[in-house]
């Protein structure tokens, strides 16, 4: 990281909702903006919202969004002086970070060395252990050989977690229940990890029974002021993928919150952190917390913290990149309760199979306390190449009960046609008594799998039939009328005129 200076033009090296999110703040700050897009994303919303846009190649992210040289070239071409990486893709790659700075372009994020230290999850664990932060038992480093990995797993006992050393966002992460299942899952994780991060190194960790996933948002400026902005409870997960996030967490009291916040700040300071970061913890049944990993980027669920603190984390990131100071710890105020639900293009009834395709209709909720961070529009074809998340819907209210009710209401007004989404599933999660009570853990989705699959309510079947039949009737009726109108117009023309024309064409006697 070299010296800070004002930013005039910001390139957003991402796509989808997060690219849109960053572009919105950049525009509010009066910056010129540049989008990059793959061939599959020519029509994407972020391309339309930026001042300039540069094509960076074929649809697979390995050939476009993951190619650092192409991104830097796009920045040079447009004269962008800063790059915001968003989340995923290149956001946590130290080498990309360095490549930006080497080309005189500011990387909006932490120093490359801090990313390296936290990026390889195994070395991060070792560092945190040295700094006195409790970590989950697991392998010291990545394991290359699958037999050796299995032997290690056999040693610590099942269940275990296989994790990608370069990982994040649940990609390349597998829970192994028993020894026989180890090798196929290891191979699957290797492929997923290679395709998502371009790095297939894996490690093994002991799986904690029924833990909660609680993370702390931290922020640091270049002057060394490091603050924590509160927690996000992310225990509602399906296949290691977060589904619903909220703040505050029901299991934290002020003392524990402060303790975790201070540990998170210590973790950030230990690697010389600057900018927005998230320290993830697992909390077990006895409310002991363990360091899981640090995400050295903006997080998908960052709006939860924004709604509770009233801060704009993207604006803060850009300001820190320009050398400006952030607020002091005692200035951080948290009020009320915020919840986020991730809207995915997937079909819960078919094992959550992705549902890419054309969005034929989109109507999103509004009203007080609702925020929709979306990356799509009516007519957009959701491509098969990328993450199936199309939007994040958030609700803020003074209390948790009200926030839940508000988000349920908002999701009820969320209409996406043409593709199948998990919206009814999200409503079922929010309505579930275990979620309502606040006593839930990362096993929630699995434990309540059946109850969360929404079956159609028989009392509305009659209305559904009426609606479908009336719509069919109207369509047939309109078609018949239109046909009759055209046929009628034809018949109404003068026959003399027709005969005259026919004669003229034949060239007969006039």
């Amino acid at each position, binding site marked *: 990281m070299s010296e800070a200076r004002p930013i005039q033009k910001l390139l957003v090296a991402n796509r989808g909702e997060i690219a849109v999110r960053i572009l919105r703040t950049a525009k509010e700050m009066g910056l010129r903006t540049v989008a990059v897009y793959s061939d599959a994303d020519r029509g994407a919303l972020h391309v339309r919202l930026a001042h300039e846009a540069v094509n960076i190649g074929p649809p697979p992210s390995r050939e476009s969004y993951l190619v650092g040289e192409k991104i830097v070239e796009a920045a040079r071409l447009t004269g962008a002086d800063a790059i915001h990486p968003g989340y995923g893709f290149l956001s946590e790659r130290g080498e990309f970070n360095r490549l930006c700075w080497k080309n005189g372009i500011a990387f909006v994020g932490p120093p490359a060395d801090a990313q390296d230290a936290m990026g390889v999850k195994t070395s991060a664990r070792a560092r945190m252990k040295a700094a006195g932060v409790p970590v989950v038992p697991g392998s010291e480093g990545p394991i290359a050989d699958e037999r050796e990995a299995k032997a290690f797993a056999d040693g610590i006992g099942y269940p275990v977690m296989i994790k990608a050393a370069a990982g994040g966002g649940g990609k390349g992460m597998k829970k192994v229940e028993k020894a026989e299942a180890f090798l196929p899952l290891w191979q699957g994780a290797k492929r997923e990890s290679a395709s998502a991060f371009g790095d297939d190194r894996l490690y093994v960790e002991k799986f904690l029974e029924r833990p909660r996933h609680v993370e702390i948002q931290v922020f640091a400026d270049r002057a060394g002021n490091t603050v924590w902005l509160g927690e996000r409870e992310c225990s509602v997960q399906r296949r290691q993928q977060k589904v619903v996030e909220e703040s505050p967490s029901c299991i934290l009291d002020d003392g524990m919150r402060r303790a975790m916040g201070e540990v998170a700040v210590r973790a950030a300071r230990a690697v010389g952190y600057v900018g927005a970061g998230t320290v993830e913890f697992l909390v077990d049944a006895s409310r002991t917390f363990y360091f899981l990993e640090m995400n050295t980027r903006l997080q998908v669920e960052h709006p939860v913290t924004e709604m509770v603190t009233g801060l704009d984390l993207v604006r803060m990131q850009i300001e820190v990149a320009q050398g400006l100071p952030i607020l002091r710890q005692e200035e951080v105020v948290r009020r009320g309760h915020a919840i986020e639900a991730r809207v995915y293009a997937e079909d819960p009834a078919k094992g959550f199979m*992705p549902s890419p395709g054309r969005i034929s209709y989109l109507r999103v909720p509004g009203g007080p306390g609702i925020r929709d961070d979306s990356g799509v529009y009516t007519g957009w074809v959701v491509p*098969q*190449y990328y993450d199936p998340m199309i939007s994040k819907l958030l609700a803020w209210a003074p209390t948790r009960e009200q926030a839940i009710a508000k988000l349920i209401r908002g999701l009820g007004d969320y*209409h996406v046609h043409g593709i199948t989404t998990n919206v009814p599933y999200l409503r079922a999660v929010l309505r579930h008594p275990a979620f309502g009570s606040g006593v839930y853990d990362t096993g929630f989705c699995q434990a309540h799998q059946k109850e969360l699959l929404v079956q*159609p309510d028989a009392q509305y079947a009659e209305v559904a039939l*009426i609606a479908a039949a009336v719509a069919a009737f109207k369509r047939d009726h309109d078609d018949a009328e239109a046909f009759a109108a055209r046929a009628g117009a034809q018949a109404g023309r003068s026959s003399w005129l027709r005969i005259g024309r026919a004669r003229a064409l034949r060239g007969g006697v006039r």
Partner: protein
Amino acid sequence: VTTYVALLDGGRREESIEVRMLGPGVYEVRIGDTVRRVDAFRHDSGTVSLIVDTESYSVQLDQRVNDVRVHIRDSVFPVEILDEKRLRMRRAAGKFTVEGRQTLLSPMPGKVVRVLKRPGEAVGEGEGVVVIEAMKMENEIKSPKDGTVVEVLVREGQAVEGNARLAAVE
């Protein structure tokens, strides 16, 4: 009066519906013995406001290739609406069955990452035959029946379109 037949539960259930127009946007709908007065107002391509007797519903109609997904409150009903002519055509085409040769189709565009079964191998109902990767997730395409894989039409690494033929089970 126009009579429609609605197919529900993937064609396992049929319901006959009579629609008569009383005036602009006002209909009388008969299902079995029940007759309802319905005021329908089409807001836009996807939303219809229905007032059934006095109860008000905002109904979403998501028109797909083969059916319409009717969304009411938290419920989604996939309905196929046929008039008499379409119903006769459907009946002639035969019923749903897993008997005989079944072709496995790709439910979405993606990439074949693994082929789990070779031609001639036995397969159980619900057992995976091909693994397709789409949107960074792996999805197993499963056999709908107990039987034998008679044909595999894709290779590992191959890109496939939605509805592409993957394999056949008999």
